[in-house]
């Protein structure tokens, strides 16, 4: 079986071809037209006779951040037309009084109302379709009040808009995110509508190109960490905003599972940003909401935390004398000073070179210029630069572990991306983590994650009723529960003793439980999962090395700190396992 995964990043497009446990990898520069990069990477890795092809794309994210989506209209209940502009009334910056939130995706003149009103218990004002004005738009988002309770009006309005504008991409909020809080639901719907035409165009072009190259129609990675058919992805692109980073988390979860660990923290440190995510029971943690480009998107996503710092981040002293690293980055061009491509600003990579954690010549053949790095850093101590960026990473790692009540010491740290394996030992020590796993494919792990991903469809059903009246519940999935009167839920896996386990979770999270309060079942979350292909990797040559040492990997470099030992003996799914002193691998 030949399986292809292609992940498009900002700088490089990575391909992984898996056949009988053998992994071939390729990297090509990302071109203006993403479908060309995808094909170039597929050719570079020698993809032919491929049976399954999975794709991670940044088209949706880029279209949102660069504001290149469709001319979109918004339909609301009369009196609520300005919902997208009012947001939740908080200002963009507490002390910069004229800081603006990002301009809403739909301008006021295309925000319209329709006469109708649903309340918590049903129809208050009947729908008057005649009151719906004509709009001139390529995409239309429809979000009526309480459609998460009763979608009848919203469904009828969407049908009417589709009838009037047969060519438009029309999204109704209850189809996508049937949950309460109208602003967040409207924002999600508007993002989805706005991205619809652009993403559909791209995926259409990709699908044609694949047919020409004799590649199968690709699956597309979603933010949730599962893949969807191309048609499903084109219908609701807001579900794929985190397509690429989610693939990295899936890759890390697979690598951890292959090495026999089911609790891990995924640590993907690239050139300009770093993504971290907790993995428990072999699965990435998930969340129901994320803010992308300033817009709330209330859809299932792997719960990763992103920091705007990576190997290319620039270090500087601020007016108060504190050393800061990032968010400015030297990017791929000119890149760090030591690349000798004209960069003069001191970066994290330059500091790592001066600390002896990088070879003089990278695996790709690039000679590193130690003197240029020293010039760029000037009087900055390279060890301080690394400690400051590590502090940022540490904060992110704590957000996904300690702050969510998870003990990082029960986890292995899965380090990948171009810079992850350089910083892993120091971060593990700070968190009390005794084991670091550096997957063999550390430089292209996202593409490997794509190849291995499950097919997944998340289903949310809003219930909003006392738990005692909820009737029979599915055996698998999660229940969103809260005490009646609260507004935020705790997700508890479905199964026996649901109420008791909610009280326990509340106690663990907030320090108390209240057995007398009624528990409300807000929603049931289930997922249809079709497992991805099983991938067995053939181990790279065995290795045992004590720190301090530098180990070069495919697309990445690993720094083994003093006191750490690196072992690769084929039992870790082909990865390199770093352990502190003579501690043994943790309790999986």
């Amino acid at each position, binding site marked *: 079986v030949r399986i292809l995964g292609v992940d498009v990043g900002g700088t490089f497009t990575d391909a992984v071809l898996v056949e009988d446990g053998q992994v071939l990898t390729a990297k090509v520069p990302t071109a203006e037209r993403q479908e060309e990069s995808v094909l170039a990477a597929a050719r570079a890795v020698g993809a032919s006779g491929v049976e399954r092809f999975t794709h991670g794309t940044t088209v949706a994210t880029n279209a949102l951040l660069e504001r290149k989506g469709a001319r979109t209209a918004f339909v609301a209940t009369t*009196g*609520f*037309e*300005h*919902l997208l*502009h*009012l*947001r*939740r*009334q*908080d*200002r*963009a*910056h*507490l*002390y*910069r*009084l*004229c*800081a*603006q*939130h990002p301009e809403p995706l739909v301008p*006021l003149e295309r925000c319209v109302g329709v006469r109708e009103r649903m*309340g*918590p218990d049903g129809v*208050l004002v009947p729908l008057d379709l005649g009151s719906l004005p004509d709009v001139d738009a390529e995409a239309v988002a429809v979000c009526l*009040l*309480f459609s*998460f309770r009763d979608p009848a009006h919203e469904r009828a309005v969407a049908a009417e808009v589709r009838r009037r504008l047969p060519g438009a991409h029309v999204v109704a909020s209850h189809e996508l995110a049937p949950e*309460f*809080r*109208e*602003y*967040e639901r409207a924002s999600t719907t508007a993002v989805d509508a706005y991205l619809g035409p652009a993403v559909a165009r791209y995926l259409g072009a990709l699908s044609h190109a694949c047919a020409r190259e004799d590649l199968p129609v690709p699956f597309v990675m979603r933010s949730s960490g599962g893949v969807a058919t191309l048609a499903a992805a084109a219908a609701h692109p807001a579900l794929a905003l985190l397509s690429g980073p989610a693939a990295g988390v899936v890759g890390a979860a697979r690598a951890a599972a292959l090495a026999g660990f089911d609790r891990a923290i995924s640590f993907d440190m690239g050139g300009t940003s770093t993504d971290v995510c907790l993995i428990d029971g072999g699965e990435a943690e998930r969340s129901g909401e994320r803010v992308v480009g300033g817009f709330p998107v209330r859809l299932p996503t792997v719960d990763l935390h992103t920091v705007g710092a990576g190997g290319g981040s620039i270090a500087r002293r601020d*007016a*108060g*004398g*504190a*050393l800061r690293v990032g968010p400015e980055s030297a990017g791929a061009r000119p890149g760090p000073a030591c690349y000798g491509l004209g960069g003069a600003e001191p970066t994290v990579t330059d500091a790592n070179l001066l600390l002896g954690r990088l070879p003089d010549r990278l695996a790709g053949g690039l000679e590193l210029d130690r003197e240029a790095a020293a010039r760029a850093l000037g009087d900055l101590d390279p060890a*301080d630069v690394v*400690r*400051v960026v590590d*502090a*940022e990473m*540490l*904060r992110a790692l*704590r*957000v996904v572990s300690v*702050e969510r009540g998870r003990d990082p010491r029960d986890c292995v740290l899965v380090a990948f991306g171009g810079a992850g394996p350089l910083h892993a030992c120091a971060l593990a020590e700070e968190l009390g983590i005794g084991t670091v796993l550096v997957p063999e494919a550390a430089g292209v792990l996202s593409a490997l994650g794509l190849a291995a991903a499950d097919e997944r469809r998340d289903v949310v059903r809003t219930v*909003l009723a006392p738990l005692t009246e909820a009737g029979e519940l599915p055996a698998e999935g999660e229940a969103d529960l809260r*005490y009646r*009167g*609260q*507004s*935020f839920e705790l997700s508890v896996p479905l199964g026996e003793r649901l109420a008791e386990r909610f009280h326990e979770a509340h106690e663990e*999270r*907030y*320090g*108390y439980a*209240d057995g007398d309060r009624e528990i409300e079942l807000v929603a049931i979350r289930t997922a249809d999962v079709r497992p991805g292909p099983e991938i067995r990797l053939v181990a790279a040559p065995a290795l045992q090395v004590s720190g301090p040492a530098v180990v070069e990997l495919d697309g990445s470099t690993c720094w083994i700190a003093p006191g750490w030992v690196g072992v690769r003996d084929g039992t870790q799914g082909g990865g390199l396992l770093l352990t502190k002193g003579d501690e043994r691998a943790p309790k999986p």
Partner: protein
Amino acid sequence: VNIELQVIGSALRAVCEEMGAALIRSAFSANIKERRDCSTALFDEHGRMIAQAEHIPVHLGAMPDAVAAVAACDPGLHDTFVLNDPYAGGTHLPDVTLVSRTALGFAVTRAHHADVGGPEPGSMPASSRTLADEGVVISPTRLDATTLERLVAQMRNPDERRGDLRAQLAAQAVARRRIDELSDRYGPEGVRAAMDELYAYSERLVRAAIAKLPNGRFAAEDVLEAAAGALPIRAAVTVTGEEIEIDFTGTSSQHDGNLNCPLAVTRSACFFVVRCLAGPDLPASGGAFAPVSVRAPEGSLVNARPPAAVAAGNVETSSRIVDVVFAAFAQARPVPAQGQGTMNNLTLGNDRFTYYETIGGGQGACPDADGPSGVHVAMSNTLSTPAEALELGYPLRIERHELRLGSGGEGRFRGGDGVVRELRVLEPCRLSLLTERRARAPRGAEGGGPGAEGRNLVNGMEVPAKATLDLEAGDVVRIETPGGGGYGVTAE
């Protein structure tokens, strides 16, 4: 700067964020869980503010007085005290503050409760004349289970109050746990050193920014719209080198209504302006305010003495103080035009429910940008309650929530627009309105036009800026909030 101190500093800030998340996510009343009318902070052993979660400006500058009041009670390790007395560390009665003694200082949460007893549901009456008219006054008291029950029994919806207080306790517990962990990890001395540095770092940056202002004395005044007539607030800002003194001599005496505020609130408003002008991106700590001293005559509107009523001081007078202090600074450097200058406090309630919200309006335009629309402009930054959350929990219906288009002032840069919000009550209840800028519009700057003044209506009939009245089922309250002033002359 020592890097380990920076690392511990980040950890302390993360503790505040985590406290805030625990409080909001486990709270029961809309004002906390949806509107996030609450704040969290950590203080050191000397009672200096070290880190805060950036929520509500008026809470934060006023918290040191709460810590001082509790420190004076000599709390034991991990003891938690509760208070709301504006004359002993509080601001106005609905803001209930919890202060715990941690291993290395104090942890504080402050949350605006939807009711704290008293004659008027919601405890934000329009016509209170003494503190006793505004609810239960809690001087610093050790909070145990018995005290908690005794307190909530004096308030409406004791069950909701209990839940909200427990949410605050959950946040206090987070602080205790995390501070202990940090102390184990880095040693108490290491954490203390990091606290000192967080404080000193903000102070250094603010001093450097103040040094760039021209020295001099800059005075300004404005008025509040009290029912019995306008009340002047006067401020003189003196910049000397790296320090600022703000003096309110000449301000009206405390009055017979509830626009009075304790000095803590006045200080908080002054700190807010300095923060906007001198260090908007600073990590928040008390050090940012060390170079700022505030003087106000005892018994004045801005340094009231008991038993003056204070319900509107924290929300409305604080907004006007910001306007006056900005106006004084305008003589030293460019500042934004006036924003809506009110929080548009709306309280509804009866024996079954109490609901409180504040409504955003227009921000004044800045020297280089339009003012945002439909936001809180100064001492608040609470969210709106979603119609869907409101209607699921209360006998209320939102009929309309939209921008008040055209209400922002004209100018080279336009003032932000206000908001129109209509609420229909579904059962008989009391309405209290505490609003400002209904008679005097927010002013433009440098030739910019004024924003539109606000309006309050019940069933289409205009009602005063400050009003308490009975509503019948089906009545509709419509609030039109002020627009912000414009900046500069409109280009032809």
